[in-house]
């Protein structure tokens, strides 16, 4: 079976680099083909990278609290680019402060994310689900 391609990156003005590096390592070890855009990634960069690499999924990180602003419109931009049904996850500290998780999750599902992960999610916590969602 061919390796699935993932686009990985930290969205917006966010520079938290450590989790991103660890995710790259863990996902590569898990057999994915990882296109890591690093930190400070704009919506445009996510869309272009997904198009160019014919990616199977986009994994968005946001640690610094601005995700609800930064991620607005990303699904729409993907639709516009013709890859509107690509699998899309988001994880990290998605809002400012410690808010009720079910509300946060609902907010980001609303924004078009297929799965939403809370802080401190370990690679082993979501990789099995990712495989499943990608039909692996």
């Amino acid at each position, binding site marked *: 079976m061919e390796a699935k391609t993932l686009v990985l990156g930290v969205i917006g003005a*966010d*520079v938290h680099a450590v989790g991103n*590096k660890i995710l790259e390592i863990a996902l590569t070890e898990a057999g994915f083909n990882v296109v890591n855009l690093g930190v400070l990634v704009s919506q445009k960069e996510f869309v272009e990278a997904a198009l160019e690499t014919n990616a199977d999924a986009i994994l968005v990180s946001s640690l610094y609290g601005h995700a609800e*602003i930064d991620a607005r419109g990303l699904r729409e931009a993907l639709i516009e680019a013709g890859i509107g049904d690509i699998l899309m996850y988001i994880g990290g500290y998605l809002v*400012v*402060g*410690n808010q009720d998780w079910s509300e946060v999750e609902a907010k980001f599902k609303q924004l078009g994310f297929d799965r939403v992960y809370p802080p401190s999610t370990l690679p082993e916590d979501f990789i099995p689900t990712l495989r499943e969602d990608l039909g692996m």
Partner: protein
Amino acid sequence: MGERLMHAKLDWDELQEERQEVLASWPTGQDVDLEQAIQFHKQLPEELNFAKCLTQAKAKGRTLAQPRAGVADLNSHLELLLYLQDVGEADLLPTTIDSYTRQNRYEEAEKALAESVREGRSLLNGFPAVNHGVASCRRLVESLSRPLQVRHGTPDARLLAEITLAAGFTAFEGGGISYNIPYAKRVPLEESIRHWQYVDRLVGFYEEQGIAINREPFGPLTGTLVAPCISHSVAVIEAVLAAKQGVKSITLGYGQCGNIVQDVAALQTLTMLAEEYLRAENIYDVEITTVFHQWMGGFPKDEAKAYGVIALGSATAALGKATKVIVKTTHEALGIPTKEANAQAIRATKQVLNMLQDQALPENAALADEREIILQETRAILDKTLELGEGDWALGAVRAFAAGVIDVPFAPSSFNLSRTMPARDNQGAVRFLQWGNLPFPKEIQDFHRAKLAERGQAERRPPSFQMVIDDIYAVGQGRLVGRPR
């Protein structure tokens, strides 16, 4: 700009054109009036001057406690700071700036500020001081009874400095390296260093007018297993760069690594090295103080365990006689803290600081050895840096990063070589698994190899990248060294 970067005092008159450009880059820049600012600063009581409070604390051998805090809206921010002052018993106050402002994205900050006011909750992770402008920022200074510092992470902080210093802030964090390498991806060091020469020159101007302003390079960098020699090298270079522009009060920082002996040795050598390299530049009139950052890496989610981490950092700060300590909170692994959690963490910190106020880690052989290692490593890096710069610290810094002579682990910047790999030794001190191009002499290389071999033996596994990953998660999982389970 345009001219070549160099380590020389900027000419104040020549700087005026650039200042006008900077002030014109966002409408609130127009309200900066230096003369009027100097007047305002002159009538501020001593207790509201950050630099003077630090001088006093240093003289008395006390460690002051300072939180981080910032929300979008002015009134909420003021309320927050009043709370940290009165209920939190903070000695020094911050104003943490939001991440859009840090990237000079004032439009985005403006929108998020408006939305925050509308929704009645902060959508920003800090206070957008530029958008608020001089008069609003001054309200903070006038309403509080502790001195205020701007804390951020901004590669180009020229406008932010103009506005907040004019408003009466008396301390400004950051530097051309420490606010670039961990906080940016594609900003060339030439650019950020030059922008921070501007900030330092502006502070130098205030000093010329008799106004003491404290400057603080950001010590912890990426906050993740940063060995003392790396952060010390950056701190010393930024101290030298700042002093050259006329800065007189410099607080050098270091982020807790977790081994008490290494941490205390780091605090002690930080002042020694800064004074040594300032003397070499013939600079004698700068006061160096120190700041210890409570653990800057991933925290445990459990608030009780987080209290343990916070208190251990406080104890180390006191035993190492740091001039101030930056306080984390029990919400660190949950999100931006509530004001209550923030105040509680300051009070826990102060209890420890007060109980240890008359105590220090007694001088001992292990401490002396650790100091010696840090001194040797840092001098090796700094001397090579100056060599690469052909005697010019600014150029040297740029070239040292390009060559990996200074190399910050886990940094997002593409101007960082990223060839080093830190890991803890068997006592939890941070060492190098890979030192990349750090110009370590052979004995130092052998030292690191031996230290990691010792840990490998204890854990019955060869030193490897898995140790690094285990170490990154370790504190969050309730221990210091990431032992195999």
